[in-house]
């Protein structure tokens, strides 16, 4: 396990060394990894770091407000409202990798503009060790690994947490007083709710995924999962108030893990599962059915796409 205090000193020194007197930007996602990378870089660079948060419309409920609050100590924080641009670009796209590409490209466009405006020479990224492994192994692409440097001519890329595992990043977050990021925010994928909507991303499906994820996070909290969320799979038949409904099937997933490399589907109490089911079908008239995913990783992955 990493020695958090020593790591913070080393990482801060490394960032100062690499960036020197220049400016840097970082993309904040709201997750632990980029939050820690941003806090380290801010420690090294102060307001010469411009943290950019892009609201893609694929964020969790309340996420954008939480970001503004958590990082209010950074005067240079920029929040970009890009919801419509992302959702329009995703229209008609069904292939999982293509979805990731569309989001990655959209993200690059938003970020390119902000980086130029901030006159940034360096890019800071919250890439962690498993991101690099999964990208190298072609299991799936992580949009924080590639893309942007091809478009913007940065002098260098700084990845201060590149050798850490998720549990180690969390240790560092605690030592940086980012307790709320660690305790309130579970891992959240780069492409956001788009990978929790199987197939085409529509505004309707994203709304269902967002509402259902919120219910699952609330209802599973006391069972302390490593990650818990809901995904919209497809449509099936239901009956609500004597009317036939052809509505969404929502899959609930709650897993235990140390580092995300392997995961165990959590043995949630029936009562908890039923409350989740009742709230999701009750609060969303277009949901016909809720299922619980009992598959471990392997053979499944944690997220759906």
């Amino acid at each position, binding site marked *: *396990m990493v020695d958090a205090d020593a790591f913070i000193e080393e990482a801060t020194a490394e960032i100062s060394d690499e960036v020197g007197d220049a400016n840097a930007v970082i993309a904040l996602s709201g997750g632990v990894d980029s939050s820690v990378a941003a806090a380290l870089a801010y420690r090294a660079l102060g307001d010469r770091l411009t943290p950019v948060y892009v609201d893609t419309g694929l964020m969790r409920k309340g996420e954008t407000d939480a970001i503004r609050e958590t990082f209010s100590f950074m005067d240079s924080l920029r929040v970009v409202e890009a919801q419509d641009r992302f959702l329009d670009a995703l229209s008609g796209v069904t292939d999982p990798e293509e979805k990731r590409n569309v989001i990655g490209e959209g993200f690059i466009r938003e970020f390119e503009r902000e980086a130029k405006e901030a006159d940034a020479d360096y890019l800071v990224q919250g890439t962690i060790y498993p991101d690099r492994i999964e990208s190298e*192994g072609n299991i799936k692409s992580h949009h924080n690994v590639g893309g942007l440097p091809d478009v913007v001519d940065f002098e260098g890329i700084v990845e201060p947490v590149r050798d850490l*595992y998720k549990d180690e990043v969390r240790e560092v977050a605690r030592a940086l007083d980012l307790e709320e990021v660690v305790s309130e925010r579970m891992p959240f994928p780069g492409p956001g709710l788009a990978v929790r909507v199987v197939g085409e991303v529509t505004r309707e499906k994203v709304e269902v995924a967002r509402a259902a994820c919120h219910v699952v996070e609330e209802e599973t909290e006391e069972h302390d999962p490593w990650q818990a969320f809901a995904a919209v799979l497809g449509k099936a038949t239901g009956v609500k108030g004597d009317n036939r409904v052809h509505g969404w099937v929502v899959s609930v997933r709650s897993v235990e893990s140390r*580092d995300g*490399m*392997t*995961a165990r589907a959590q043995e949630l109490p029936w009562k908890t599962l039923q409350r989740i089911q009742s709230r999701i079908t009750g609060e969303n008239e277009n949901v016909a059915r809720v299922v619980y995913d009992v598959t471990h990783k392997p053979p499944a992955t944690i997220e759906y796409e």
Partner: protein
Amino acid sequence: MSEPRIVVIDNHGQFTHLEGRALRDAGVDTEILDNDTPPGDIDADGLVLSGGPSMDRIGRTEEYLDLDVPVLGICLGLQAIAELLGGTVESGDYGGYADVDVTITDDDDPLVGSLAPGTRTWASHADEVKAVPDGFHVTADSDVCGVEAMSDPDRDLYGVQWHPEVSHTERGQEVFENFVEICR
């Protein structure tokens, strides 16, 4: 006694870096090397052969078996040892994924004997060893796989089908510690 240096050979496995982490946590000097590293460039008191996607991508593993240091093969690493030394590897009837309860069949085995009578492991494989090579014997089995572990203590060659490096394997760290002992 000085700590041994144990090198992990990367067969493009998803968990290779966790093997490095487990060895680091066991307090030994470790490094992860690509599986096309020339054998002459490897300075090690022991080798871990990682898992990976395919027997077609095991690189120079055959040459590493001649380095005369203890070897621990994990998943594909175990299957590579079996195939290269004259055993048989075939597709299993039933893939082993996630939880597998393993029974230790040799309590005196230096690698897995300490786990007797059995242990809960985490696995991810479709193929399995059907016949162990000459000099080896089976040291663990399970309901889904007849060769969960095999050993040739005379040549200090060992293998496990499960993944001792992942956190969901109970007592996985103990396997690495046993292997460190073997390398001392």
